[in-house]
């Protein structure tokens, strides 16, 4: 006799509640795996129901009905009590949760991988741009770079400057050359001349020995539209208003 046959033979006794101990535990374990035995158990429960019917007949006293109706009126709402069933669904639920979590983590991992790769690309690009800017800056301001100003033949080199300005975020870069040496305790001061109103200070600077100078990103308000830029000579600490005459000036192109 196979173990299945033995379990099948025990099923009526299990349905009657007559199986106990290790036999009962073993059969319940078998029931979780055996569809045929589960179906047979349902059939046996049906047989038991028929057997129960043989006892039907005596009517309960009327007070039993009143007692029940009174009790349910004390609990007017049918409360949906969560079913307590066998725990066989737990492994299935756990497997589903694990599968969903795995899928989620896999997708999340893929997303993070993409983001990381993108970040890495951006970082590399930014690093390249910074390096390029550093090289440009080093070329402008480095003492080892040769600065040559080309002018028309037989014309004495004049002071000149170039301002790069973006009103949206107030970014300003100013490069000047051929500046005359300053008197003691004096500075050059750059001015932003707005569309309306008085000129605004845009940085003080002193030229190097060769007359070159640079102003990078002085503190400027955002969104200030510029009509022109100008340079004057001011006290060393700067001045709130430009002192005439202007050394040089230029309007926006």
């Amino acid at each position, binding site marked *: 006799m196979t173990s299945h046959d033995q379990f099948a033979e025990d099923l009526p006794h299990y349905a009657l509640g007559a199986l106990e101990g290790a036999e009962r535990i073993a059969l319940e374990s078998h029931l979780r795996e055996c569809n045929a035995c589960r179906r047979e158990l349902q059939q046996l429960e049906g047989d038991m129901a028929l057997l*129960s*019917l043989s006892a039907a007949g005596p009517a309960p006293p009327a007070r039993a009905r009143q007692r*029940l109706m009174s009790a349910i009126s004390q609990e007017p709402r049918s409360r949906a009590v969560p079913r307590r069933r066998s725990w066989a669904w737990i492994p299935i639920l756990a497997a589903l949760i694990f599968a969903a979590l795995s899928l989620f983590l896999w997708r999340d991992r893929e997303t993070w991988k993409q983001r990381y790769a993108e970040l890495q690309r951006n970082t590399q690009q930014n690093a390249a741009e910074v390096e390029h800017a550093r090289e440009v800056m080093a070329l402008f301001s480095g003492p080892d770079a040769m600065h040559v100003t080309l002018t028309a033949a037989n014309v004495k080199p004049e002071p000149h400057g170039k301002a790069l300005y973006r009103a949206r975020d107030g970014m300003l870069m100013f490069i000047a050359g051929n500046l005359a040496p300053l008197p003691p305790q004096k500075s050059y001061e750059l001015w932003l001349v707005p569309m309306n109103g008085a000129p605004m200070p845009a940085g003080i600077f002193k030229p190097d020995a060769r007359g070159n100078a640079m102003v990078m990103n002085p503190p400027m308000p955002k969104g200030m539209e510029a009509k022109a830029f100008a340079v004057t000579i001011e006290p060393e600490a700067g001045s709130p208003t430009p002192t005439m005459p202007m050394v040089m000036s230029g309007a926006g192109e």
Partner: protein
Amino acid sequence: MAPEPQPTDVALVAAIRSGDQNAMAQLYDRYSGVVYGVALRVLADTGAAEDVLQDVFMQLWRNPAAFDSSRGNLGAWLAVIARHRAIDQLRKRRPETDIADVVISCEQNLENHADRSRIVEKVRGILSGMPAPQRVALEMAYFQGLSHSEISAKTGEPLGTIKTRIRTALMTLRKAFIP
């Protein structure tokens, strides 16, 4: 005039889910005789049988979701639950069977009073037609909740014989209802 069709068990259970007390009363009127009869047969005590009756229908009221039509028909389900609860009470133990775990395969329509009465009479006829030792062993196991060893001790028959008698009696009952 044709009698007004009675609502089905499924419809009444659905109404109970919505808190319909009248639906509960209808189901009680339909099946209280079955539930009470089983409990009384097991417990042989009207007060204790009333307690089981109350308990079984209160469980249905509180948790109608425990029964659904895929678990068999309601009458058969209540009959089996009633027997479980009565045996628990007889043995003064906590309920061992979760009502939501009971799944029954029963093709008999118990909703209609006439059909139910016909089936009850048929079952009684089958039982009375069985060899007495088979019927006694089956009824001792089912209505008295005795273990096979206890039946063996009471009847003086070998354990294997008791098991065989019970199994044979159940098969006889089943075969009588196979169309």
